[in-house]
């Protein structure tokens, strides 16, 4: 990688302003989550009080648990379907309506969430489905699978097709060639896609609030309804935990995609 040559003062200043713009609010939130004071805006010294409070708040814990379950389930299903869609689009024979299909796959990326949420709600009502864990999971799957498909498809696109041909030439039936050559090479993209789906599901409020039912609120819904009654410092603690979780996931995802782009280059002997 190219070394960044000397930063001028202007560069440093603009970088600082940019980063501050992005991260100062989050930093303040994190700091105030350790606030001992009962008032959100008044600093009363360091304390872990609101974290204890959160772990004692059954409703919040339940909502967090619900969010995690939905995120894991929907990310897993979305990764499966999204990967299959990406493979079909970039490797399959040219079928009729392929352009339409790939266009439709990307539609949810740009569709306002309100519309996605509302249409799914109408569908679930029409099907008379009981709204709760599964309806939210299905809704999140439809949202996130196209993100997975995009990530995996771009990796497949950059992958040399002759690799699969070489595998077939060396005795693999087509499915076997995919499993033994293509899959290991796109695995980092699949992992990154899963992580992306996971975080998207974790922080979604709009679609979840349309498709969930009574008694099965996700964490963002819970937080949003609490905030409407006034911000408790406990919310800061929860948000800090969510930020930490998402940060970890994003770091893992970017490490995975970095590994995929420099496949073998940094292959330290294990």
């Amino acid at each position: 990688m190219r070394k960044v040559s000397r930063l001028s003062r202007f560069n440093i200043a603009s970088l600082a302003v940019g980063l501050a713009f992005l991260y100062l609010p989050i930093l303040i939130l994190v700091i105030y989550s350790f606030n001992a004071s009962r008032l959100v805006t008044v600093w009363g010294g360091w304390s872990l009080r609101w974290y204890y409070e959160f772990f004692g708040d059954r409703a919040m814990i339940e909502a967090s648990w619900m969010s995690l379950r939905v995120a894991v389930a929907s990310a897993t299903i979305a990764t499966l379907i999204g990967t299959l869609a990406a493979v079909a689009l970039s490797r399959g024979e040219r079928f009729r309506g392929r352009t339409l299909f790939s266009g439709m796959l990307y539609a949810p990326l740009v569709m306002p969430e309100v519309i996605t949420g509302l249409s799914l709600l109408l569908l679930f009502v029409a099907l008379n489905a009981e709204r709760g864990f599964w309806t939210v999971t299905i809704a999140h799957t439809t949202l996130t699978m196209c993100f997975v498909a995009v990530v995996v498809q771009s990796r497949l696109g950059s992958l040399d097709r002759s690799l699969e041909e070489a595998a077939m030439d060396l005795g693999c039936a087509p499915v076997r060639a995919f499993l033994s050559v293509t899959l290991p090479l796109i695995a980092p993209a699949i992992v990154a896609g899963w992580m992306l789906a996971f975080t998207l599901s974790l922080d979604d409020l709009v679609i979840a609030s349309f498709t969930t039912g009574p008694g099965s609120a996700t964490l963002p819904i819970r937080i949003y309804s609490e905030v409407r009654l006034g911000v408790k410092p406990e919310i800061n603690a929860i948000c800090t935990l969510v930020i930490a979780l998402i940060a970890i996931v994003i770091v893992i995802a970017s490490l995975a995609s970095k590994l995929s782009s420099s496949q073998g280059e940094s292959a330290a002997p294990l």
Partner: protein
Amino acid sequence: MTDELPRTNAAAHAAGGDSHPAAGEPLLRIEGVAKTFGTFRAVDGVSLDIKAGEFFALLGPSGCGKTTLLRMLAGFEAPDEGRILLGGKDVAQALPHERPINMMFQNYALFPHLTVRDNIAFGLKRAGMARADIAARVAEMVALVKLDGLEKRKPDQLSGGQRQRVALARALARRPQLLLLDEPLAALDKKLRESTQGELMQLQRRLGMTFIIVTHDQEEAMTMADRIGVMNAGKLAQVAGPRELYEAPRSRWIAEFVGDINLFDAESKLRDGHRLVVGTRDAGKLVVAEPRQPVGESRFSVAIRPEKVKLSRRGPVSEAGHETAINRLDGVIADICYLGGTTTYKVKLDTGGMVQASVANSARLDVDAYSLNQQIVAWFSPDDCVVLPS
């Protein structure tokens, strides 16, 4: 279930391939093979026999269908028409893994997630060979292509030349009846390419294997192949040995594609014993040996390779001192192109045309060299001319 059959096939072929055809029969017979992509006829009725142990080159400009033909042999494309017989068995519709044919890809297509050793062993594992046998075969291949000490490297830790060797070893490991090489040396620099050409030829002779190489580089084809098939617009234009291809090209297109050539369009002809006296606009009257196939009334050209055109200040002389050359063209040197081993002179003829002469620089000091605008005589023997139908 469906996985079983190919695997046993592959095992048989990796174990040595005992289904060689009877003596005299070609190993590979291509019969009227055609392939159309949309409205583009990439390969248009190609028929070709290739003997076991032959080093065959498919030569042609890009887009001539040579790679498509190779891909049909490997099984990546199915021909729309025709048959591909390997050892007497039609394999035209067989899948790549069902054919005892291996291919070396132009970009090598090494598996980036596998080490050199695992790349070479890949096809052997799929053939169901025992572990010990695989290890022995990989070691043999590594020694064969001189990759010792690099077995644990990944492809991107290798140089271009080393990658090329891994690709070759991987394709050879299964001991295919037929090895296909798609522009195998295109990515190497000139020096490495030349030494690798020699190594490939040695290897092919030592293993007694049948090689089909696709290339757009005529020197490469000439150097390595026993026979060359020149392709143009999906058709085989000529199949011949390197010498015949160069000295007796069958058409004007081939003559121009393979090497440099001077061409003079004929306007009239007159028979004179075993010779033809041809009237040309650009070079006046030329005397040529009568072609084996009479030209009849069709239009034709007289062709002469630049290295067969001699130059001198005074006129035609032979080694013995007496005049043999009948074709004598007067002109002035219009262009000089020094190439090291040879110099190419362009001579502007008094009759209006141009002729190129390639002269070996046999002396270090330029006492023999001609200078620009110098009056010169270009001459050549009738036997060195080729008559080509236009």
